[in-house]
């Protein structure tokens, strides 16, 4: 008990120290070239899934935004933090299965942080993690509203899929620190309140792989970097 309180105290001071002299990294992920044709997801196999959508549903493997940026790219600090420890945030993340699609498609998680896997569909989904560092799990949620809380201890990026609905796939990225971000509809990302130092930042995309950039962050500094993925 005493040890736990002391650890928390040290971690809190670390966070306080870091954040009072912290900087940010922001930027965008651009896309060049012709994006591959989005694949239509055919949900005829399950009438519940089919009924959940009035319009055609397209796959999210490569989602290029209207401003020419790329969605669902996970950007994170790969190197430079040394052996610093970071307390997991109390905020629980929601990983939803709604309309037989995973929301979000790419989810960043800090080690030790709780993720609530939710089934919002009135049909059975199984959540199968293809993780290697963390124990792989494959759990079914037969009923609407069922929840499952998971925590991960080892940093890695892995796929999550549903074998019942073969089109369902998503990615989870687990990091030992809070400096990660996933690009959204504007293609931007921001890694906030980094302690001053030199970092290697990596951008990961499920189809196009990874890119890295070196960044020097000073106290109360905001550095801007950008990544560009090219279509084939």
């Amino acid at each position, binding site marked *: 008990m005493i040890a736990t309180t002391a650890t928390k105290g040290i971690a809190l001071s670390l966070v306080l120290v870091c954040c009072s002299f912290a900087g940010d990294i922001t930027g965008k992920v651009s896309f060049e070239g012709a994006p591959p044709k989005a694949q239509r997801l055919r949900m005829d196999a399950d009438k519940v899934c089919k009924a959940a959508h009035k319009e055609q549903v397209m796959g999210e493997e490569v989602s290029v935004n209207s401003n020419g940026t790329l969605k669902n790219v996970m950007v994170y600090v790969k190197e430079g933090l040394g052996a610093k420890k970071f307390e997991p945030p109390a905020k629980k993340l929601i990983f939803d299965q709604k309309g037989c699609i995973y929301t979000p498609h790419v989810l960043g998680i800090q080690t030790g942080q709780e993720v609530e896997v939710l089934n919002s569909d009135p049909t*059975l989904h199984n959540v199968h993690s293809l993780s290697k560092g963390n*124990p792989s799990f494959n759990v079914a949620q*037969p009923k609407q509203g*069922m929840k499952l809380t998971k925590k991960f201890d080892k940093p890695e990026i892995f796929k999550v899929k549903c074998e019942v609905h073969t089109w369902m796939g998503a990615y989870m990225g687990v990091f030992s620190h809070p400096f990660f971000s996933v690009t959204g509809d504007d293609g931007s990302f921001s890694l906030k309140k980094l302690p001053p130092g030199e970092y290697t930042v990596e951008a990961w995309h499920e189809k196009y792989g990874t890119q890295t950039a070196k960044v020097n962050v000073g106290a109360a500094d905001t550095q801007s970097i950008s990544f560009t993925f090219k279509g084939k």
Partner: protein
Amino acid sequence: MSDDSIRDKAGPQHQHTETVGAHVAVHEEAVHHELPFWRHYIFSTDHKIIGIQYGITALLFLLFGFSLMMLMRWQLAYPSEIFPWKWLADLLGPERMPEGIMLPEFYNQLGAMHGTIMVFMGVVPLAVGAFGNYVVPLQIGAPDMAFPKLNMASYWAFFVGGVIMLVSFFVPGGAANSGWTSYAPLSVIATTGQTLWLIGMVFLITSSLLGSVNFIVTIIQLRAHGLTFMRLPFFVWAQFVTAFLLLLAFPPLEAAGVMQLMDRLAGTSFFLPSGLIVSGVPVENSGGGSPLLWQHLFWFLAHPEVYVLILPAMGIVAEVIANNTRKPLWGYKSMVYALIFLGFMSFVVWAHHMFLTGMGTTISAFFQTTTMIISIPSIVILTALFLSLWGGSIRFSVPMLFALAFLPMFGIGGLTGLPLGLAPPDIHLHDTYYVIGHFHYVVAPGTLLALFAGIYYWFPKATGRTMNETLGKLHFWGSFIFLNGVFMPMFVQGLAGVSRRLYDGGIQYAHAQEVLYLNEVMSVSAWLLGVAQIPFIINFFLSMKKGKKVSDNHWEATTLEWSATTSPPLAHGNFAKVPEVHRGPYEYSLPGHRKGFVPQNERVEA
């Protein structure tokens, strides 16, 4: 005097049976008082105690396996609805039944373990371990089994195997969940429970092997003087053939079990093919193995295993029918020859479980032919049992009711198997509820009813008291009606094409809609079947202490276990005087005899 010397002298080749009998009695006195409790009742080498140990353990496993099925039936009747007994859902925990909703992973565990427990830990140990151990030495006039210590090892190997199977429910991922057949490659990549399943199976198979060697040697070597093979009670014949099946069919599965263990733990690929992709990810293994090899090895065991389940049941029914019709069995010799032929044939029919694996038409034709042939000896035995009833002065005792019910139930089980034994109808029926209905008619309304007949029949022998008849009849009628309520609708569902492996009972399938209501009928029947076992459980324990005391030969039977020893038999050595046999096993209602039956050991006709 050592056990061995007693056995030597009690063998059929020795003449001085009375002297030996005296030795046995002296020996019994000496040993009976020397043995401490744990040697007498726990680590016993006495075939009767071991038989009772097998019987109690197997009955408990049967109850447990049945309970797993009753849980499954909730999910099938009311898919994903909240389980009404909150305390049980809470006990099972969120990994199995979160908020009272059964997870598919748990359902799969229940299915795999129900089959495993009922077959390997329930029916076989009860039919062979319990009845075989208790009755065979008494029926052949032997003081014990040929290898008493091996007998004890057999029980404890079975016990350890059973405990390992139970423990497997508590490991991460739960118990084995790849079906009782454990088909590769699914089973090879399954959760940890499968490893324990394989280790448990190795123990259970070892137990069967030790037991089978013991039965074979005992029946060949320790028959009383004058008890020739054609004078053996049919039950002994059934156990004899069964022991050969166990001896010859189980080793391939033991080898296969070890090979699958290696695939799971040591990185081998006996059953993993090259290029195996699981959930879109290539499996890291050397490959080159054959999933079909597992199926061949499994069914090479599991088809003879069907006869391991059914032959002792036929043996029990034959004893009960002869005794309660007060007539010799009709066509005893034909039945024995049919039994032997059936034993041989059971080794060449296994691939009729695999018609849909893509085997060639030539091989398919071979196995269809052998399957049709094997039905002949079964029909010979069943017909002989039916004909034995003809003209008999039938006593409708509780064991007889169970034995009589066995005949049509096994008949339904056998006849519904014929379409499955032919490849064209099997294309439609394979993996449907029809298959479940078929084999359950063989082993549940079939074998289980016969086993109950055996319990009611030999209970007075083991305890000196009879079981209550009213409770017995209540048990019989409840079981008979509800067993049919569970299994008959399965044929209807199966013919409609409902798959046997659906976690939700088929609600998602258009072709299942019209027969979905049967899920509820079957489930309610299953739960009522559970209720119908309560009179039996009460009767079983109550009768041990309060049952009506009976004479040594309560059923006025002709076989040695009734006519040549007390009820219960002497603790060690069984017989005060080693019996000598003068006639066949079923000399009932001989013309001109006042008593109406002549025991096998009676020298002068009454």
